[in-house]
């Protein structure tokens, strides 16, 4: 174990000059080894930017993102111990490459050919996909299966931390459950650290040990899952909680006074 993934006063900016927008404005966050941190927040609050910075896909303007003393925010890191699974299972796998090739690409360097095959089979089994699928193309698989394979690819890199960015929001509800179960099981089995990003509070609540609530580029509330959800302190967290649609609960009156006569 290499210690926690630490975000320290991270700022992320898109564009420059007068058109610059600050997506992340000073985030401090820690993802301890072997735990699941849930990150919720409205769209545009900077969740995905933060995730992408941790794997070097977007540069940080200031601040540090470290894992075991190694800066993770640079573009050119030889071996990433932080891996990411993306939202859209239909665009996260190269349609021209077989499942096996995609996964094999993510294996750490210096693994011999013969070993690669068994390694690919191993991670496929981890995510409950038949290893013979290694020769299939993504086009032959359903959304849920693709998301499992994207997870397998992330695991193939032998990461310490996996960032899952809205991995179930493009899936059907009946499939979502099995992917969430899988994430939980694997996290426990491999003792991984997971940063689970979602706008779905119920999903985050179900999987996470700790929950961080993000708004406008800042973390506005942080704490144990029950703590945050049962006794939310920040008004935004309260609003978020109230807004979750529930069967059998009333929708409440409009916030706006300007009703028509």
């Amino acid at each position, binding site marked *: 174990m290499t210690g926690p993934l630490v975000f320290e006063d991270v700022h992320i900016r898109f564009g420059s000059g007068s058109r610059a927008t600050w997506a992340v404005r000073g985030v401090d966050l820690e993802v301890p080894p072997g735990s699941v941190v849930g990150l919720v927040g*409205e*769209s545009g609050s900077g969740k995905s930017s933060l995730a992408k910075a941790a794997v070097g*896909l977007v540069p940080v303007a200031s601040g540090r993102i470290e894992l075991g003393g190694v800066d993770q925010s640079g573009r050119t890191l030889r*071996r*990433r111990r*932080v*891996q*990411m699974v993306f939202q*859209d299972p239909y665009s*996260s796998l*190269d*349609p*021209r490459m077989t499942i096996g090739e995609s996964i094999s*690409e*993510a294996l750490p*360097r210096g693994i011999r050919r013969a070993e690669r095959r068994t390694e690919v089979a191993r991670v496929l089994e981890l995510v*409950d996909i038949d290893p013979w699928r290694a020769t299939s193309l993504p086009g032959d698989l*359903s959304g*849920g*299966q693709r998301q499992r394979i*994207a997870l397998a*690819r992330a695991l*193939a*890199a032998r990461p310490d931390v996996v960032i899952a960015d809205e991995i179930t929001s493009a899936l*059907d*509800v*009946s*499939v*979502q*459950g*099995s992917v969430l*179960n*899988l994430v939980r*099981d694997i996290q426990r089995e491999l003792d991984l650290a997971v940063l689970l990003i979602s*706008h*779905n*509070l*119920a999903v985050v*609540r*179900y*999987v996470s040990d700790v929950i961080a609530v993000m708004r406008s580029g800042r973390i506005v509330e942080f704490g144990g*899952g029950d703590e945050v*959800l049962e006794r939310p302190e920040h008004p935004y967290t309260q609003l*978020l909680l*109230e*807004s979750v*649609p*529930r*069967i*059998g*609960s009333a*929708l*409440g009156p*409009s*916030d*706006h006074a*300007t*009703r*028509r*006569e």
Partner: protein
Amino acid sequence: MRTARWRAALRTPLGATAAAGSLALLVLAVAGPVLWGSAAEETDVASMNQPPSGDHLFGTDDLGRDVLARVLVATRTSLGLALGATAIGIALGLILGTLPVVLGQRLGRMVVALVNFLVAFPALLLALFFAVIFGLDARGAMLAIGMAIAPSFARLVQTLSASVAGRDYVSAARIAGVGRFRLIRRHVLPNIAEPLVVNATMGAGGALLAFAGLSFLGLGVQPPTYDWGRLLGEGLGRIYVNPAAALAPGVAVVVAGLVFALLGETCAAVLGVRTGRGPVAGRARHAEQPESGKEAAGTGGDTVLHVDNLTVAFPAERGTSRAVDGVTLGVRAGEAVGIVGESGSGKSLTALSAAGLAPASATVSADRLDVAGVPVLASSEAQLRDRLGTSVAMVFQDPTSSLNPSMRVGRQLGEIAQTHDGTSRAEGLRRAVERLTWVHIPDPQMRAGQFPHEFSGGMRQRAMIGMGLMGRPQLMIADEPTTALDVTVQREILRLLRDVQHDSGAAILLISHDIAVVSQICDRVLVMYAGRIVEELPVDRLDGGAVHPYTRALLASVPDMSTPQDVPLATIAGRPPEPSERSPGCAFAPRCAFADDLCRSTDPVLEVVGPQQRAACWHPQRAESVSGGTAGEMPGGTAGQSPEQTPARVTTGDDQ
């Protein structure tokens, strides 16, 4: 599959011509010099500049050489040079085009700017310029033309690779530590290859013409070698003596150019790349007339939507596939009805067909399909637009696709009043502002003057609803209106829909994959599976009262704010059947824990199972038969197992 498509393309007139033409050119290029090489070189001073005759079909040139033989022999040189120039252009284009991906942002931007600058010059001008620089011979001309066509090719590569480089799989490969060059070779190039092939083929035709042009001007191929351009130049000099000597090489250039163009079109058709000539195959919308005189049961005078036995089918590889398969539903005035179901269950198609908006390739049929008193299937498109335009409002998941980005929101809304009610422009705008107020848009006067992109997602959705309210909608169809929105905004939009329903008296048909969303504003829920309605129940029965195994499994598999964290979520093994692979019997049978032989052989029909509740199931599950109530114990697929058996992990790779 791929080869089958090529083979099919060969059977089309376009493909057949392209193939035959390419083959002929290839044979000529290979065999031409061998067969007619000596005839083309044979000078005969006695018969200089002869017009066409039996011996010389296209006459002779000023050394008495046979023109036809020379044109045929020149095929090799002409094609070879054109292809060489294309190859140079492609190579340079690929390098310039992929450089931005390799170089990173700042340097990459400079390359893009350079390419944009070069593209601004006409290719022929560039070719002339380079030809002078590289020297007046075949090699110089080839380089020149190659460099002249490189910029446009580079730009194509840039646009294509930029879009691929933005894909998640490229990001994923980056994170996995794949280097830049490998990234391009393995991920970018293969995924942009198809449009490039098409473009290169057409580009070769262009290069051929350009080459002919240069040689004609004396800048390309130099004597004693000759290509079509050269022959054309020589022939034109003697056009009054022997016009055929100019005609033959001219025809050769045109024919070869055509062959390349046809070949490009064929590739485009097979590979599915658009060349801007419209769809390869289009099928007219076909609406079957309702059987006359057939009255559906349960017609109420106040029904705004009456759908009886609706079927929506698409042409499939074998026959047709029925995406919606016999749906019957009714929505009464002022009622809110929800349709839930997974992706592909047919909920959108049901709603779209009801509004006469089914895709053109669909075959829609129904015993009856009436909206706001308008028989949809028996009306022409113009009639529908006119009569449904104001009485049915549609709200889609992505409001950007339905709002015109180049028109101010107020104008856009106002225009509806102008076209449908013939109001003045000012009155239309006034009404637009009023409607924007109704949908709770703050500062509506100012917002009406803005463009859609200046609105947030939630506000655009409000504007969309406001647009629907411009008429006097009797029915508002909302297809996943909140799926792209945050929960907080979602709640506002749902409240808005509810208020609109109350205030305007419009009925609502709300489509969502999220049963909780539907439960918020609807009175009744229809659950769709594989193109059919499998259960229909009042919203207040959702909590524990559902009887169809699919509905129950669906409800159990979604975590809510009270789902115990230490129990795996219930799952439904397998996935819904594709419309084309539906077998007889209950479509849910392969995933259902209660399926028996009856289920697998005979389709259950919707039958009343309780007050206002219907289900299509041979073994409806009553509330009493549920043992506990925790998620893990939910019957349905693997979910039927107890928590200790970890239902999630027993499902294997060939499902979900």
